[in-house]
C-alpha cells in the first residue's frame, strides 16, 4: 500500500511541475514549452504553438503593442535583421532549418492599429495574446516587447524540441548592439533534426519505402498516408499503430479492430466478432474463412453482421 501512495505522490508532483501556469513558474531558457492555443489575429482561426512549428524549424516569437515605442524600434530591426534576412536565404538558417517569425499582439480593442503595425513591419503570422496569458509564462512582471526563441525542430542535435533557447524582455536599443545580432546568433545555432521515418520507428524491419510503399513481408504492402494511417494494397485504409515487426493490431474501416501476427497470419482475429478468420485474396476479392462457423464469407457478410 505504501508503494502505491509513493507512486501517487510522484505522479502528482510530476504533473504540477510540468504545468507552469498552475505552479506559478515561468519558462526560462532550457525549459520545454507545452502546447498553447491562440487565435490568429488576421483570420480569427484557432492555431496552436505546436501547429505553428509542426514542420519543425526555429520559432521567433515577438510580442508587440501598436503604441509601444520600444516595439517600434525593435520591430524595425527585427524586420530587416530577421524577417528579411532569412527571407533572402529561402526562409532557412545557415543549417537549412526553417525560421518562422510569429508576432503576438498584446493590445486588444485596436484591430486596425495592431494590423497596421503588423503590416508595416512585415509580420506574416500574428496571433492574439490580449490578456498576456502566454506572455506571462515568460515574463510575469509585464513590459514589452518580449522576444522568445523556441526550437520546434525534432531530433535536433543542438536542443530538444520545444525547448526555449532565448528570452529577452524590453529593447534597450539606441546605444546597444542591434537586437538582430543577438537573435541571429541563437537562430543560426539550431541544427537540422535527423529525419525519422515514422513507419520505421514502429516497424524497424519494414522494407522500403519503394515508390512510397513499405512492405512487412508477412503482412503486405502499404503506403504512409499520415502514419499511423496507411493505405494497404489489399485491405485499403487502415489505422496501424503497430506493436512490432511481427505483431499488428490495426483498425479496418469495415471490420473494426483486428489482430494479426507473423506466426499465425493469414489467420486474423476480429475483435468485433470475437473469432479467428482465415484470410485469402481470391480472383473475386477478399475471402474470409470463419473458423467457428466453418464457412467462407465475403467482407460484406462479416461487416453486416
Amino acid at each position, binding site marked *: 500500500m505504501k508503494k502505491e501512495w509513493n507512486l501517487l505522490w510522484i505522479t502528482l508532483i510530476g504533473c504540477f511541475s510540468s504545468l507552469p501556469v498552475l505552479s506559478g513558474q515561468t519558462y526560462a531558457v532550457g525549459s520545454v514549452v507545452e502546447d498553447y492555443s491562440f487565435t490568429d489575429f488576421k483570420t480569427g482561426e484557432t492555431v496552436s504553438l505546436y501547429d505553428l512549428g509542426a514542420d519543425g524549424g526555429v520559432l521567433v516569437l515577438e510580442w508587440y503593442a501598436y503604441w509601444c515605442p520600444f516595439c517600434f524600434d525593435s520591430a524595425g530591426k527585427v524586420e530587416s535583421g530577421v524577417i528579411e534576412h532569412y527571407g533572402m536565404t529561402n526562409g532557412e538558417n545557415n543549417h537549412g532549418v526553417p525560421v518562422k517569425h510569429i508576432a503576438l499582439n498584446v493590445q486588444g480593442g485596436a484591430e486596425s492599429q495592431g494590423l497596421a503595425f503588423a503590416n508595416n513591419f512585415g509580420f506574416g503570422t500574428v496571433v492574439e495574446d490580449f490578456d498576456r496569458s502566454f506572455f506571462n509564462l515568460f515574463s*510575469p512582471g509585464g513590459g514589452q516587447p518580449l522576444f522568445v526563441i523556441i526550437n520546434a525542430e525534432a531530433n535536433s542535435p543542438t536542443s530538444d524540441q520545444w525547448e526555449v533557447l532565448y528570452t529577452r524582455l524590453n529593447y534597450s536599443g*539606441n546605444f546597444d548592439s542591434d537586437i538582430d545580432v543577438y537573435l541571429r546568433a541563437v537562430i543560426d545555432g539550431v541544427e537540422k533534426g535527423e529525419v525519422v521515418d515514422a513507419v520505421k520507428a514502429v516497424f524497424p524491419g519494414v522494407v522500403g519505402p519503394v515508390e512510397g510503399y513499405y512492405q512487412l513481408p508477412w503482412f503486405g504492402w502499404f503506403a504512409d498516408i499520415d502514419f499511423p494511417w496507411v493505405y494497404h494494397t489489399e485491405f485499403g485504409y487502415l489505422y496501424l499503430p503497430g506493436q512490432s515487426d511481427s505483431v499488428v493490431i490495426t483498425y479496418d474501416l469495415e471490420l473494426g479492430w483486428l489482430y494479426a501476427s507473423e506466426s499465425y497470419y493469414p489467420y486474423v482475429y476480429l475483435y468485433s466478432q470475437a473469432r479467428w478468420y482465415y484470410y485469402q485474396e481470391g480472383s473475386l476479392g477478399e475471402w474470409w474463412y470463419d473458423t467457428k462457423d466453418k464457412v467462407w464469407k465475403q467482407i460484406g457478410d462479416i461487416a453486416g453482421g
Partner: protein
Amino acid sequence: MKRVMKYGYIIAGLLGASVLWGQMLEMSSEWLEAEDVRLMTGSVSGKMELSEGLELRTEWAFNSIDFDYRPDPIDFSQMGGERNEENQAVSLRLRKELGKWRIEGTGTYYRGYRSLSDAWLDEFYGQKYGANVLPGVHYEVIEPRGYGGTVSTRWEYLKSTGYVSLGLGMIQDRVAPSYEIDDLLTSFELVRGDQHLSTLLAHLTFENVVTKRIRVRHAFSLTDTSTRDVRLGWTGDLLIALGDDWFVRTSGSYNEEGTTFISRAISQSVEYSIGGGWSIGVRGRYYEDTGQIETALASSAAPALITRELSATVRWISEGERWQLMLSGGSYRTRYDPIGLGTAEFVHLYADRNWTLVRSAVTYTF
C-alpha cells in the same frame, strides 16, 4: 482676418489709452527661426500715471509658434504636417511709491500654448491616442490657459544705493497633459497626467550701487509647482561702466530642482556708445541643464540641453530720450544630449537646431 481685427482693436485701445493718459509706450518683438520652427513674440505696453505716485502699466503680448511636425520616421502611425499655435497674454501692473517703499501688484491672464514643446507634445499625443481605442482615459483637446498674480514690495534701505525687495505670487495653469500607458499585467490602459498645475512663487532681491560705476543685483527665488519638487534659483547681475562710453554686464544664474535637475547660465555683454545717441554692443550667453523635469508621467522628458547665443545690438536714443530704438540680431544654437530610452518618439522635438535670432524694441516717452 478676424483675428487680426481683434488684435488691432486691442493695440488701438492700448495706444489710445497711452496717448491720452500715458507716459510711455513700448513695442517689442522677437523672432526666432530654425529650419523647421518659427517662433515670434510681440508685445505692446503702455505706462500711465493714475495719480501722484500711482502708476499703471498694461501689456498685451502675442506669441506665435509655427512648426513642421515631424514624427519619429519609424512611427508609421504618425503623420507629419504643419501646425500653428498662437498665445495671447494680457497683464496689468499697479505700482505705488511711498517714500522709501514701493508696493507693486501684477495680474496676468493667457490663452494658448506657451512653448514649442507643449504644442509639439499635444500634436504627438493627439495623433497617438486620439483614436480613443484604448481602455482608460480618452485623449482630450484642451486649450491651455492660465492666470497668475504677484505682490511685491521694495525697500530703499540706503538712499539711491541699496534696495531689497520681496515678492510672492501664484500661477494657475490648465495645460495639455501628457499621456502614458499603464501596464496592468493582464491589460493596458491609457492614463493622463495632470491638467491643472498650481505654482507658488517667492523671490528676494538685493540691488546695490557698489561704487559710482558698479551695480550688482542678486535675486533668490523659490518655485513650487504641483507634481514637482521645489525649484530654488539664484540670478546675479554685475553692471560696470568703464569710463563714459563702455558698459559691461555680466549675468549668471543657477537653478536646482530636487536632486536631479540643475541649470546654469552665464551671459556677457559689452556695449559702446559711439555718440549721437548711438551705441553698439555684443552679447554672448551660455546655458546648460541636466534635463527637463517631467510634470506628470515619464517618457517625454527632455534630455540635457546646452544653448549658446551670440548677438550684436544697435541702439539709438533720441535727444531728450523721447525715442529709443533697439535692433539686435544673432545666432542661437540648441544642443541636446542623445535621446534616452523611451524617448525615441521625440527625436524631432529634442533635435539640435541652429536658430536665427532678431529682436527689436521701440519706446516712446510722452
